């Protein structure tokens, strides 16, 4: 394939799932009408969820899910060794995601309670970047297919993708949504990285921050605003911690 006279290579890619709901991988199978074009661009050599073919000569690895067990750590490190480019995909891989909610509790107690003392291989919830260097983080819970395709085009052109640096509000306004904060609901849109076309506010839910913080997000100001609107600190914290997108940010600033 050629683009402006430059020969483009068809990279070999692998998809690897760790601890998560596999919703992100599912998105890749969506938008069936151009699946053919997508799989024409890349050669899928490893994608367990939809294919029995398994090869280890991939150049680009897409990782979804968070990392919890030692065996997962080892598997991830091996993938990192092989892959030229490693993409963390989705909130679980990029942020730890909802899985982190369990970190509020003492893990051994949790295991004991759920598995009644049976041996279980598990560990603390970690995002991919805590274990190995990550080249690109594709945000979202789940990821969006158009954004995935956009990323693939960048990878093939060999350009580093620039995700929106501004918050969700921009896109929310472009959709002519009514601001859900005006309607009395909570929303993290003002501090969350855009790119999802504000789907949640559009669906009258308010943003939950699944795409992680926007760059230089003004969290202090939003906290003030939310408190003024009558939300309790606990309520705000519950929301901010949901996808583990904002943990540490506020504390580090202080």
């Amino acid at each position, binding site marked *: 394939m050629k683009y402006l*006279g430059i020969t483009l290579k068809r990279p070999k890619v692998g998809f690897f799932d760790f601890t998560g709901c596999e919703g992100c991988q599912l998105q890749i199978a969506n938008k069936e009408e151009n699946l053919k074009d997508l799989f024409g661009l890349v050669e899928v050599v490893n994608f367990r969820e939809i294919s029995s073919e398994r090869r280890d000569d991939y150049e680009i690895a897409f990782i979804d899910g968070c990392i919890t067990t030692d065996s997962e750590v080892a598997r991830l490190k091996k993938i990192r060794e092989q892959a030229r480019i490693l993409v963390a995909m989705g909130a679980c891989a990029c942020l730890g995601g909802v899985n982190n909610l369990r970190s509020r509790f003492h893990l051994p107690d949790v295991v004991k309670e759920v598995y009644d003392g049976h041996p279980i291989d598990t560990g603390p919830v970690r995002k991919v970047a805590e274990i190995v260097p990550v080249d690109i983080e594709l945000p979202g819970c789940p990821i969006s297919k158009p954004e995935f395709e956009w990323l693939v085009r960048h990878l093939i052109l060999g*350009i*580093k993708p620039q995700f929106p640096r501004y918050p969700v509000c921009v896109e929310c306004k472009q959709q002519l949504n009514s601001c859900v904060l005006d309607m009395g609901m909570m929303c993290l849109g003002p501090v969350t990285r855009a790119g999802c076309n504000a789907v949640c506010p559009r669906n009258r839910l308010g943003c939950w921050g699944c795409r992680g913080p926007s760059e230089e997000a003004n969290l202090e100001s939003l906290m003030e605003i939310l408190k003024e609107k009558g939300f309790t600190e606990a309520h705000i914290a519950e929301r901010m911690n949901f996808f583990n997108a904002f943990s540490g940010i506020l504390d580090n600033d202080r």
Partner: protein
Amino acid sequence: MNIKIPQYDINLEPFMERPPDFNNKSVLMQTEKGFKSEVINIVKLTSQEKLFQVRILDSCEREKFTFLPGQFVMLELPGCGEIPISISSSSSNREFIGLCIRKAGKVTGMIDRLEPGAIVGIRGPFGTHFPMQKMKGYNILLIAGGLGIAPLRSPIYWVNEQRSAYKDITILYGTREPGQILFDYQFEEWQKIYNLKLLTIIQEPDENWKGRVGLITDLFKEVRIDPDNTFAIVCGPPVMFKFVCAYLSDIGIPRQRMFVSLERRMHCGMGKCCRCNVGSTFTCLDGPVFDYWTVMNLKEAI
């Protein structure tokens, strides 16, 4: 009853037939139309910069494309992006346009990978130019830092072509490292044939470097400037022209006789996207070439 509002079809307007003429700014034209151009030659200058010679394919469009030193074009790679680039060739050369490009990001990174024969889009020329006519009869001091030499090549060609109209012409050129010097293959030609004085200086020399070492301002010690009869053109990173212009003002060159070329983020080149707007001034329309008096009045210029 129903009413159908008549449709006004802009596609029937005469301007749709004509290639846009960016020198005629106030007429309606297809402002998005890129002149299809072929990259006919690529000269690798350093590890970061290349000189691209680009030829507008359509003869009619090529005919229309005239510019003055200091102006820039919007260079487009369809599907990748569009960026402002100063024209770095002679304004009397109607065959091709020279663009000296440093790879710095998305579009420039892609441009770096182009090969001769690639088809790109060109819109322009845009912006203000150096007042070459007004400078006639004066000395000209051209001061460049780093990539700043690129937009100066056009005035250099200009003065050579009308060499007798100008008095002494001095080029002061500084870069960080010797490997970053651009167009050194032309230095001899400039000095001997164009009859210009050229001084270069390096900030961080390597062992092979035999020339001067220091900041560009150090070169002032070596040149005699006659403030009453000199125009200055300064191009380079903001920190550089801040110091240079301050010095030149101090020795008495009027601010209206010093010209700088500003850089700002740009997406249109036509005063619409506002990305280059500094309060009330558009770098793309009112600039990129400004006299230093104007720059001083821009709140955020440097």
